[in-house]
């Protein structure tokens, strides 16, 4: 579920860029807060309106994918790191105990394309790169990178 080499992603870290941290209960009701935070940040960074809409959806899918199988005590910690053109968002979910094979949400019908695949298709389309990985039996980490269009920034002067 990755579209970019790991070393290139790691090169974005540790360069003194601004960080924004958001810690939430890993509860579906709080997903809107992650979207709001992402859109507010992107707006300040000069993302275009349609890019912000894409980002909201990408962050939503990131949180859904990372927190699948969350227990009531689970947390989702989001980190936003941005440079001029690239916004990287990492979501670390602790207290997710389901095995990967058990994570599929009930779609209400057999034979329907798994939601995980739908989510992956959305992230494929809307992000520069993305990945979801299990770090331990109870922790999962996902990240996305979203690029701001250069022309849009220049247009803002």
């Amino acid at each position, binding site marked *: 579920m990755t579209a970019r080499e790991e070393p290139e992603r790691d090169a974005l870290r540790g360069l003194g860029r601004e960080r924004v941290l958001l810690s939430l209960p890993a509860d*579906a*009701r*709080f*997903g*809107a807060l992650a*979207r709001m935070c992402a859109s507010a940040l992107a707006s300040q960074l000069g993302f275009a309106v*349609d890019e912000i*809409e*894409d980002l*909201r*959806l990408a962050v*939503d*899918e990131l949180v*859904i994918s990372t927190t699948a199988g969350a227990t009531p005590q689970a947390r989702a910690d989001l980190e936003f790191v941005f440079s001029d053109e690239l916004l990287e968002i990492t979501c670390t979910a602790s207290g997710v105990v389901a095995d990967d094979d058990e994570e599929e*949400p009930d*779609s*209400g*019908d057999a*034979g*329907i*394309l798994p*939601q995980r695949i*739908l*989510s992956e*298709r*959305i992230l*494929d*389309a*809307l992000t520069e790169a993305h990945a979801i990985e299990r770090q331990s039996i109870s922790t999962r980490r996902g990240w996305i990178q979203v690029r701001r269009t250069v022309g849009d920034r220049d247009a803002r002067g």
Partner: protein
Amino acid sequence: MNDVLTVSVARDRGVPVVTAIGEVDVSTAPLLRDGLLGVPADEPLVVVDLSEVTFLDSTGISVLVAARKRALGASVRLVVTRPQIAKVLEVTGLASQFEVVAARREALPARS
């Protein structure tokens, strides 16, 4: 936190119309699912009006796909006016599974 989606079911020109207003995400998708389950399975045509839906994620898409499967041979027409909602259907490769129209009047049979 309050739900940010309202779902209603009504008939227009004899056709069941499920209207959603707000954001469809993992938290609110069950409301849309419940609305769709309120439509009898043997209806030949079901219209789902998403023109006032401002956000739709993969959980919402899953609910729509489940409704289409439940409808068996019936038509499920989606009213989609916002580009972002159309884009979600497109990138998931599911736009072709529905009849997508740009206005409710296009989704309903002509008045006799």
